[in-house]
Structures are given as C-alpha cells and as structure tokens.
C-alpha cells in the first residue's frame, strides 16, 4: 500500500515506522524538516518539506499514486482541509483525518470524512478504566 502521511509528530512518525516495517511504501510530509528526526536515521520512506494544504506539495509527495492519505498535523483545520483536498481533488480512496475538537469531528464525520478524535476516544477510555 502506498501511504502519504501529513504531519511528522509523535503519531505521524510512529505510524510511518510501523507501516514501513510491514513493507508499505510511505511518504511523510511536514512543514518543518527538523520533525523528520523522529523517524530515526535509517527511515527508508520519502520525506517532503512543505505545507500539506498546498496542492503542489501534495503532488510532490506522490499523492496522485497514493492508496491512502492520513492527516495528523497538530492543526485540526489543516487536517480537515488537507483531507478534503486528498479526497475531492485527488480522489484518494482511503483518507483518514485526525480532529481533536469533538464538535468539529462530528460535523466532518457527518459530511463523510473518515475521522478520528483522540480527545473523545481518550476521555471515554479513561472513564471506562475508572469505572472498571
């Protein structure tokens, strides 16, 4: 599977390394090249520096050939816009978008984006643990 990951923070970098270890072809985009150090020195995937809401940057990252796109920058709005560009402009079959704000997550899920809200998930899980 060819995967483009936007955002090389903890989640983006960890996901990239997991996917690469399973033999997937991964490209990571981040606006700050220093973020790529999280991938370790021998990361075999492609690295692209730039802002992920820019069509040209996404093209440089090979989005036109990608099977999946994952938006995990620390900005909800950046993730929302990049995910919609990937889906609507480039027609990427699988697009996953992280949104911290539960209300915004609900809106975009109802608009058909495949979303994950770590805030809601984390809070629910902690509540379960407290109750269990």
């Amino acid at each position: 599977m060819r995967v483009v990951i936007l955002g090389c923070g903890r989640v983006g970098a960890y996901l990239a390394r997991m996917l690469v270890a399973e033999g997937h072809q991964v490209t990571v985009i981040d606006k700050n090249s220093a973020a790529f150090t999280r991938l370790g020195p021998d990361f075999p995937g492609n690295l692209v520096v730039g802002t992920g809401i820019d069509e040209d940057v996404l093209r440089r990252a090979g989005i036109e050939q990608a099977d999946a796109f994952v938006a995990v920058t620390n900005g909800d709005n950046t993730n929302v816009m990049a995910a919609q560009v990937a889906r609507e402009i480039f027609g990427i079959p699988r697009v996953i978008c992280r949104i911290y704000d539960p209300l915004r997550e609900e809106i975009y899920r109802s608009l058909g984006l495949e979303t994950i809200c770590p805030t809601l998930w984390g809070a629910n899980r902690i509540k379960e643990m407290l109750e269990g």
Partner: protein
Amino acid sequence: MYTIVVGGGKVGYYLTKSLLEEGHEVLVIEKDPRKCDRVIDELGANALLGDGCEASTMTEAGMGRADVVIAVTGDDEDNLVVCQVAKHKFNVPRTIARINNPKNEKIFRKLGIDVTVSSTEVILSQIEQVIPAQSLVHLLTLRSVGVSFIELEIPPDSPAIGRPLRELGIPDDCILPLVIREGKEAIIPYGSTVLQPRDQVIAVTYETGVGTIRRILCG
C-alpha cells in the same frame, strides 16, 4: 443584514468599518485580545473574543441567525473550516472566504464555499495588466462588466499542446473565439481543435479568470 466577520486583522478591521458605514449589523470574532479590543474601541463594533472555528464561539456569536459569514483570517484552512461549519451546522445562507493561495480558489468552490476573494490573484491580475508577462496581452478590458479580451501565445512547453480544447478544463465563462496560426491562418476553434506551439489565441473571460486561462494555456 446580520454579518459575522471572522478575523479582526487589517482586512477584517477595514471590512467591518465599511460594513458598519453601510448600516449593517456586524459582529467580529477574533482570538487575539488586543485586536479584539481595537475593533471595539475604534469602531464601536461588537466583537467577540474567541476562536471562530469553535462551534461554541459560533453559537455565542448567534451564527444561526447570520445572513452572511465572511472569513478573513490569514490562514486558508481556518477560513475554509469557518465557512463549512457555518454552512453545515448553522445553515448560514452565504459564506465568503478570503484565500491566500490562489490555487485554493478551485478547491474552495468544490468544497461548497459560495464566494472566494484572493488578494494575491487581484494583485497578480493588476501586475499582468501593467507588465504583460508570459506572452499575455490585454487587448481590451470592459471594466463596467468586468470582462477582458486577452491574447496569448502558446509557449513550446505548454501543457495545452496536443490535446483537444474540450479536454483542457477551460472554465465555462471563458471563450476562445479565435486562434491565429503561424501569423496567417485564422481558425475559429471548436472543442476538437488542438493547439500548436506559438499559436496566437484570443480569449474572452471575466477579469478574475485571466490567471486561470493563462495557467491552462501557458502552464
């Protein structure tokens, strides 16, 4: 008319000032307390301190009864989310977004934003009128109706070469009435016409579409 302006920077400030002068009811949402105070103190406008992308701020601003929402922050992604949330959660009838990257115009339109305003594109089109760049010449501009007649020469590396016109994605509100080949042959083009390097193309388009047609024909 109740208008909500998201972003109280320079564009938001002067936009609000003009709207107030025209007698509209305006509320500004701004997350920087200093900018927010400036709008209140200098314009006497209603301003709400908060993140205009947050549904709770929007509810507090009375988004549900807004006639128009105008998002003019400096970040395209924030302007997009403001307009989409306004439209889909609060059913605001008209949303207007400022865009900084002119290429986002197409994306915003596709994602349901009613109107986009690109200052970059406006400045670019002004420059193009003064200095004809990339073999583009403004033959005539009908300012009252916002229509331009332009002439372009197809460069040898143009992406438009070798494909019929109908496949180039030329916007519906732009027509190409004439192609002059090798300076002597006049062609009235159809959808099936294929351009060649150094063809002179006359185009009629709205002024806002000049950049788009130049990109399509000249790359």
